[in-house]
């Protein structure tokens, strides 16, 4: 509109009339019938339940899947369960320590305990810890872990020999070779065969 002269003789009322006249176009007489036919080919409007049941079903399935995954994940990683209990934390050795007892014997038992509790507190998955340590996880039941921790403690405190002594002596005593007396074999001819042989000769 720059450089143009202002409107001459075009009033608001005249403009409105022009616009209304330009838009005063009626559709064809069959227009409503066409819409009815078009709408008739459409599926009926969905009801409340029809609109929402896919959403509800999807949400329910997702919730079940999440619950199952969470349960299976927890049961497959006992160290996370152990991490919830402070007393158990103190008893739980690291998976790597269980996998390599020779390394554990020289290591501090408290260090792997801190590692397990950290994993539980952060809520990380075990795979994250695997990536950090570069070692594979070894899954051992809780009782075996406790027993192994007790064994390591006994070895470190020098109680191992005393603990094993009573059970180790018994087999030694019974393992001494006993004298076996085997009577010499005597081969005697059967009387009937000897008699038959004498007749034939």
């Amino acid at each position, binding site marked *: *509109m720059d450089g143009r002269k202002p409107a*001459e003789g075009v009033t608001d009322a005249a403009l409105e009339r022009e616009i209304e006249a330009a838009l005063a176009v009626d559709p064809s007489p069959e227009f409503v019938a066409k*819409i009815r036919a078009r*709408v008739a080919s459409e599926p009926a409007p*969905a*009801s409340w339940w029809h*609109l929402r049941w896919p959403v509800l079903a999807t949400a329910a399935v997702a919730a079940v899947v999440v619950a199952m995954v969470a349960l299976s994940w927890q049961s497959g990683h006992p160290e996370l369960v152990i991490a919830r209990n402070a007393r158990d934390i103190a008893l739980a050795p690291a998976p790597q320590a269980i996998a390599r007892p020779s390394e554990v014997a020289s290591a501090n038992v408290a260090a792997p305990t801190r590692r397990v509790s950290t994993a539980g507190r952060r809520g990380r998955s075990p795979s994250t810890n695997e990536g950090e340590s570069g070692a594979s996880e070894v899954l051992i039941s809780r009782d075996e872990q406790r027993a192994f921790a007790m064994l390591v403690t006994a070895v470190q405190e020098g109680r191992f020999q005393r603990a094993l002594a009573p059970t180790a002596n018994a087999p030694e005593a019974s393992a001494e070779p006993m004298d076996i007396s085997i009577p010499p074999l005597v081969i005697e001819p059967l009387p009937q065969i000897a008699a038959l042989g004498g007749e034939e000769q």
Partner: protein
Amino acid sequence: MHGRVEPVRPAISRWNDAVSVDQDLEHEFEARLLESSTLAFRVAFGVLRHREDAEDVAQEAFAKAYRSFRQLRDRDRFRAWLVRMTWRLALDRKRSDRRRLAREDVVAVNPTTAIDSTDAHERSTLLWNAIDALSEKLRVVVVLAGIEGHDIREVAALLELPEGTVKSRLFLARQQLKDALSWMVENQRKA
């Protein structure tokens, strides 16, 4: 509930209820169709200026409205939704159909045709050219205000905009239209 357990209704009863609700919906939709079909057509015509195309677009808008009619049972909401949907569909149609040059009543840019035509046709051509030159926000206000004598309040309700916004847009649009029309008329006289 009134503190007592309601008896379980038989399935056939619930089915009858569903059928009844569907029939109510059909009746309501028919009422909306009768009162809003021309509005939808004119909105589409305001964009396309082609009768058959405008009818197609309006039909498509009604088909979409029918699919979502449970959420659009309120009359005002239905009309507002229908106007916006029709406007959008018409714009889509116009953009995707650039090749179509023939107009039913108006040739878009063809001064020779405008000069040769009658005065009414000429004025209409100039007016539509001026409306086309408006921005989309101003154009939709002008078109809706020119349909069925809608006032500012009704246009605001249809567009779900504040009345002040509609008023200022309408004022701006009319100013631009007057400028454009006077300029076009002058040019035509000179030619």
